């Protein structure tokens, strides 16, 4: 259980965390989301007492972090996987951490085995890949068998297998009744892992909700149709009460109607269909819209819009037929999930 109340942190004239309040519950994976520079890491540093808050309080199990009798038995935190002395072996790194909290030596071997680093335990960490460093960092968090786990961007730099491993680990840890608090700047990552999400932007709380609610509120079901008779189908959809938006590539996005209904309408109107599929607005898009105002640095010429609006602009380029004018919808709100994934790759 982590409780943050009225937390603020100022570095010089920059307010990195601004009156933040939230609680992280046990038995769940809580995603901590926000664009780069939103204050996620700072918040975690404040929770751990690495930085001192300008205002507000942070309690872990009802205590300030530095007052926990055995901090590693209660909290396992990984802020920066590369925050190790590269000249020290993985084994000795963990051993010197364990000793501060009177953790027995066999535990070091166990966590090394758990994260799969036994073979390189005696190697100096200087030569470790980012993925291996992440595993070493996670091993460190598990040394004390803590109730609360905090990971800052744990999947950064991991291969797909490593990502899956971390996801499973976080879920397992939560299912054992532990508090798992994990930050990410990727909604797609949290979609698969988190139960609750806390979204911040520019140090302020934007949303604190469950992932299911967030999905329900932010994803609109859309039917994607490809047809040579776009105008005919668009009119038929409008008559049936749906909203049709033509995309530049000869497809039509239909909202407000089910796939079945859209197919029936096409049949009745005598329109030939080359494709009929359901897509869901990506959570990534919803997340970007939510945090668009709080993104610190935008790439080049995209003022006020999160990344990915290139594509929208390109699609809008040849002035597509907007059949139902008043409910104009940005062309790429609805996208197949895989395209959204591809795009988030670019955001990194």
């Amino acid at each position, binding site marked *: 259980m982590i409780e943050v109340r009225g937390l603020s942190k100022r570095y010089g004239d920059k307010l990195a965390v601004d009156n933040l309040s939230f609680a992280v519950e046990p038995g769940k994976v809580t995603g901590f989301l926000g664009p780069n520079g939103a204050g996620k890491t700072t918040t975690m*540093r404040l929770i*751990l007492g*690495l*930085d*001192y808050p300008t205002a507000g309080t942070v309690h872990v199990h009802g205590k300030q*972090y*530095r007052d926990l*009798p*055995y*901090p*590693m*038995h209660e*909290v396992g*935190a990984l*802020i*920066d996987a*590369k*925050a*190790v*002395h*590269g*000249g*020290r*072996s993985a084994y*000795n790194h963990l*051993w*010197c*951490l364990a*000793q*501060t*909290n*009177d*953790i*027995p030596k*066999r*535990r070091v071997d*166990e*966590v090394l*085995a*758990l*994260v*799969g*680093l*036994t*073979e*390189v335990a005696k190697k100096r960490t200087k030569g470790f890949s980012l993925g*291996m460093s992440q*595993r070493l960092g996670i091993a*460190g968090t*598990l040394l*004390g*068998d803590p109730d609360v786990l905090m990971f800052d961007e744990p999947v950064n730099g991991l*291969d797909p*297998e*490593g990502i899956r*491993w971390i996801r*499973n*680990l976080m879920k*397992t*840890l939560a299912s054992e009744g532990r508090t798992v608090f994990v930050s990410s700047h990727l909604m797609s990552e949290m979609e698969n892992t988190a139960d609750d999400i806390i979204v911040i932007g520019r140090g302020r709380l934007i949303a604190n909700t469950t992932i299911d609610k967030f999905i329900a509120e932010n994803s609109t079901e859309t039917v994607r149709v490809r047809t040579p008779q776009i105008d005919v189908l668009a009119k038929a959809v409008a008559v049936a009460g749906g909203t049709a938006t033509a995309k530049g590539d000869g497809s039509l996005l239909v909202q407000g109607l089910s796939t079945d209904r859209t197919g029936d309408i096409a049949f009745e109107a005598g329109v030939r269909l080359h494709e009929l599929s359901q897509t869901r607005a990506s959570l990534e898009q919803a997340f970007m819209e939510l945090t668009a105002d709080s993104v610190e640095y935008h790439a080049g010429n995209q003022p006020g819009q999160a990344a990915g609006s290139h594509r929208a602009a390109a699609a809008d380029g040849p002035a597509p037929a907007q059949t139902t004018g008043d409910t104009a919808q940005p062309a790429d709100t609805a996208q197949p999930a895989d395209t959204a994934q591809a795009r988030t790759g670019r955001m990194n």
Partner: protein
Amino acid sequence: MATVTTEGSRLSALPPASGRAGLIGTLRSEFTKIRSVRSTYWTLLVLFVICVGLGALVTSLTAAHWSQAGPGQRASFDPTRNSLVGLYFGQFVIVVLGALIITSEYSTGMIRTALTAMPRRGIFYVAKALVFTAVALVIGEVTSFVAFFLGQTLLSGHHIQTTLGAPNVLRAVIGGGLFIAVTGLFSFGIGTLVRHTAAAISVAIGVLFVVPIIVNFLPSSWTNDIMRWLPSEGGLAIWNPHQQAHEWSAWPEFGVFCAYTAAVLIAGFILFRNRDA
């Protein structure tokens, strides 16, 4: 990359924790830290080789040229200082290690991991300083005694050697180790203040080596008044059997150096506790 063999977090249960993570565990941890990086061994080896090697070189040269030495040279000759002369250069090596002990925590980022494991910073800082002091004192004493005995052996051909029983000699040889340890602590304190390896070493060497040179260029009445207050003189006095002109005797003069070191360490302690890590 190593493959994952286990799913989930199934680990053996820990013995129930009673009490509180404190100084003892942190001392153990710091001892593991200091002996698990190569830079410790390298710097200690260099310290030993420089001090003992230079002492051997200087005493052999002195012995070889003793027959040609004039009366003035013979009068100012001191076999203890002659054999310990390497300590003067050894101080720069311990300055490096003293600074690295704390600044490497910052340069590698390890400080964040370490303070997450032991968030009670006062304990962390004291444990670090104690472990370093112990290591520096042991290597300092060993080095000083080895340099002394080797030097005296090399001087013995001309019967110009001395023994630990001679006035002030034992104090000077023990003082050689104290000098190394306190010099290292001085640098450790500066390292805590500036949190940067190169800056810490530059400041420490500037204070211990450059400041006395500058003071030497002042009008001599000033030099005579100022010199005894410099940290560097206090350090040098403790391994010199003879009292320098215009300075206090060995222990009070060494006390000046210890006072400076304590001031730097206390300032470091306060900043370390109150600054963001």
